[in-house]
């Protein structure tokens, strides 16, 4: 499977440094979660690895630099679930998931029987078959989110990047979506990098958390190591209690600021 590495990586928008001196390696089967306040550079890391923003340093997939390879090559190895996907309302569910096969279809070609097979398996797997003919405009938020994940899975890439995959979902759909990703990761050894705001969920699913602050990597480790109330106070400017459950789960509970 595939290892993704960031080496002396940085993203600059104009004169603004969004990410600086970022080094990390995420191995096959590992789930890395990027946390940090808004504007810390989490999305920039994911977008750079998807070829959407320019960056300095390098990003490699199994020691091949993605800058020197084509979009198509990268899309076979890396799939991306954006924070706010663009949903063409009059497209059908089937057509949408089929787009995930693009990296395997020749420029002017059409999808092979194998491509259709993959789409069908993904639709079955994600329990979307009964929606296949529906247009996207008729789906609920939770169904849409599942669909975007379905498209990414149809890409059959060993690396999966998720940008705030659960922000728009209720607690049940959040769990469902993350369990789905986790199941695939265990089955197929996917490398997963996600950016998440919900710290408890992040700690629950990720093997490793990276806390970003103003573009720098300020803390890294397991949930127990990174999620500490003094760390959160320093970087999020928040007053929160961190509760360690006996089973190792770390729960972050926000607190009201003391009234003066």
């Amino acid at each position, binding site marked *: 499977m595939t290892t993704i590495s960031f080496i002396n990586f940085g993203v600059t928008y104009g004169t603004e440094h969004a990410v600086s001196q970022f080094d990390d390696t995420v191995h096959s089967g590992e789930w890395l979660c990027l946390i940090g306040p808004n504007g810390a550079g989490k999305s920039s890391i994911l977008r750079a690895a998807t*070829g959407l923003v320019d960056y300095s340093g390098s990003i490699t997939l199994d020691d091949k630099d993605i800058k020197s390879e*084509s*979009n198509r*090559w990268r899309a076979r190895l890396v799939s991306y679930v954006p924070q706010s996907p663009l949903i*063409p309302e009059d*497209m*059908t569910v089937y057509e*949408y998931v089929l*787009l995930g096969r693009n990296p395997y279809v020749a420029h*002017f070609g059409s999808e092979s029987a194998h491509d259709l097979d993959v789409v069908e398996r993904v639709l079955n797997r994600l329990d979307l078959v009964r929606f296949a003919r529906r247009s996207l405009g008729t789906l609920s938020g939770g169904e849409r989110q599942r669909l975007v994940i379905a498209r990414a899975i149809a890409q059959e890439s060993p690396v999966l990047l998720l940008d705030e995959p659960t922000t728009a979902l209720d607690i049940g759909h959040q769990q469902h979506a993350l369990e789905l990703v986790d199941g695939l990761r265990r089955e197929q050894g996917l490398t997963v990098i996600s950016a998440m705001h919900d710290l408890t969920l992040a700690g629950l699913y990720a093997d490793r958390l990276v806390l970003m602050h103003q573009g720098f990597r300020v803390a890294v480790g397991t949930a127990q190591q990174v999620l500490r109330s003094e760390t959160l106070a320093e970087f999020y400017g928040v007053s929160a209690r961190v509760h360690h459950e006996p089973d190792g789960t770390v729960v972050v509970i926000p607190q009201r600021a003391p009234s003066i």
Partner: protein
Amino acid sequence: MTLATTPRSVEIVVLPRGQRWWLSASVIALMIALVIGTMIGPAGPVWWRIPIELINRLPFITVHSGITSAEWNIVWQIRMPRVVLAALVGAMLSVAGAGYQGVFRNPLVDPYLLGVAAGAGLGATVVFSLNRAGTLHWIVDPLPLAAFCGALLAVFVTYVVGTSFGAQRSATTLVLAGVAVTSLATAIQAFVLQRHNDVVRQVYSWILGRLSTATWSDVRLILPYVVLSSCVLLLHRRLLDLMRVGEDEAIALGANVRRVRLIVVFAATLGTAAAVAVSGLIGFVGIIVPHAVRLVAGASYRRVMPLSLLLGAAFLVAADIPSRVLADPAETPIGVVTAFFGAPFFLLLLRTRQVAK
């Protein structure tokens, strides 16, 4: 979970039965329009003899139609080039419009968006102002050439300007650059016209579009461009579907978005410029036909592209018929007819579809 044994139950969603049906229906509509188009017009033989003669002209078939060779000359030299030209121009404008709408992800875009119309108009105005009468005996008529070059030049300027500023959101910058170039070319055109107001009428009639002067040499002139650019556009139908999820996600899915946009814009512009060069500015076709197709056959570009091509051809051939007979013996400008009949038809379609939903 037994994934391998699931029946192929959803495959037909990609190729719905409706697609083949619509494809055949469009081909038939085009054939009917072409035949009726050659049957109707001032002078010439009795209308019902013409289909018989057309069948007679097919290889290995002989039927007696009673058409004299002088009458057949009218059909062959005057009506047929006009009908064929209408089909080519209609097909080109529609498929180019659909292509532009696809790469710019904007349903209100028409093929004249990036300055084609204004550039061609300026080119034509210049020819009319510089002694049009003196150019009539030239071997190569400079009017279509000037319109063609003006159109390409305007879009070239738009593209260079539009892509040099906005690296991030180049689609929007490109459209805005098109607006600026259009205004500039229109301003120059107005200035030239003001100094040569004796040609205003000629320029005005050119702008409204006309097929009345069509000859086989016009057909020969634009055929290569129409064939080439339609083929390129049709080949991009799958990628245009991919562009519907936006630039970022198309890149994430492995597409080279800039290259696709460049090729589609180039092909659509080349074909549109050729069409405009021989027929003037026929409005409305490039925006209304792709939308009508979307309403009846779905929004996937895999269907929109081929059906726009066929129905665009049929629409313009059909619209040309009232343009010949409405104000007989005078011509009604084809641009007027397309808008006059197209707009109510489109509104009707929009309404029935809304109700059906």
